[in-house]
């Protein structure tokens, strides 16, 4: 428990440093790389908190696909952020501080971290954990909930992914690149 707490705090502290660096940095390639590191560290936090499937997905999707897409966008647009001339920097800071304070006040009533008697653990989850080996028979409870108990949501999610593919192809389109003779360059 103590080791888990230490690793958790260290990873979250790294993520806080990265978040502040992303706010301040103007070189956009650096921002993309820091974003990738942020996703990877969050995958580490998920692993420490016993969420193996989520860590897997976040590492593959956040540090892989999302970073590639941001880098691909950056090679077709600007590489540095221009400084903002007209706006007052104090108003966004005020908005963010007020929102953060309200959220912290709102989450202060939650039960202690990891409490087994919290309401979230006593209503629906025991039914899934106890009945899943008998009704479905596979060891991974997350897969059984995702694919069988909550199968409609996963159908909707698959449709959302397909729709995003359709939308990007409507916006950008795919141009079939033919190989030219003597072409040794590699693309961006």
């Amino acid at each position, binding site marked *: 428990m103590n080791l888990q707490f230490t690793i*958790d705090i260290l990873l*979250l502290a790294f*993520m*806080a440093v990265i*978040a502040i660096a*992303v706010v301040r940095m103007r070189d956009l390639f650096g*921002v993309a790389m820091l*974003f990738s590191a*942020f996703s990877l560290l*969050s995958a580490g*936090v*998920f692993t420490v*908190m*016993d*969420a193996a*499937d*989520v860590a897997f*997905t*976040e590492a593959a*999707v956040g540090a892989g696909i999302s970073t590639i897409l*941001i880098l*691909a*966008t950056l090679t*077709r*647009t*600007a590489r540095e*952020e*221009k400084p*903002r001339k*007209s*706006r007052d920097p104090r108003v966004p*800071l005020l*908005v*963010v501080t007020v929102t*953060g304070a309200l*959220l*912290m006040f709102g*989450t*202060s009533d*939650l039960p202690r*971290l*990891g409490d087994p008697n919290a309401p*979230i*653990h006593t209503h629906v*989850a025991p039914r899934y954990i106890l009945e899943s080996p008998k009704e479905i028979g596979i*060891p*991974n*409870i*997350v897969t059984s*909930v*995702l694919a069988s108990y909550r199968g409609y949501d*996963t159908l909707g*999610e698959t449709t*959302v992914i397909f*729709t*995003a593919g359709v*939308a*990007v192809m409507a*916006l*950008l389109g795919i141009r079939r690149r033919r190989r030219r003779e003597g072409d040794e360059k590699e693309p961006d």
Partner: protein
Amino acid sequence: MKFLQLYNYEIAIFLAMAGFYVVVSRGNLVKKIAGLSMFQTSVFILYISMGVVTGGTVPIIIEGAISYSNPLPHVLILTAIVVGVATTAVALSLIIRINEAYGTVEEDEIHKQDESF
């Protein structure tokens, strides 16, 4: 003392507010999308922290485990992660088209060209 026991939630809220600040105060569109994605990831940390059970293990049935972490937040966040990358991809393709139409991705210059506000 109760405040210090909820450290996961507070750091997750701080990270979310950092991402939110990037969206609100910076003018470059690509950086806004990166900040929005960081905001989403911090919200996932908030949700997964709610599903932790002390002394529990990964929700896969094995011999000798006493209790398991709550699998329901994991399922919700799995869906949310993939939907998040789908919306990020559509937003980035819109930014590429904006760059081709306006010649820039800075918000001030786009507003000036459009004569909005």
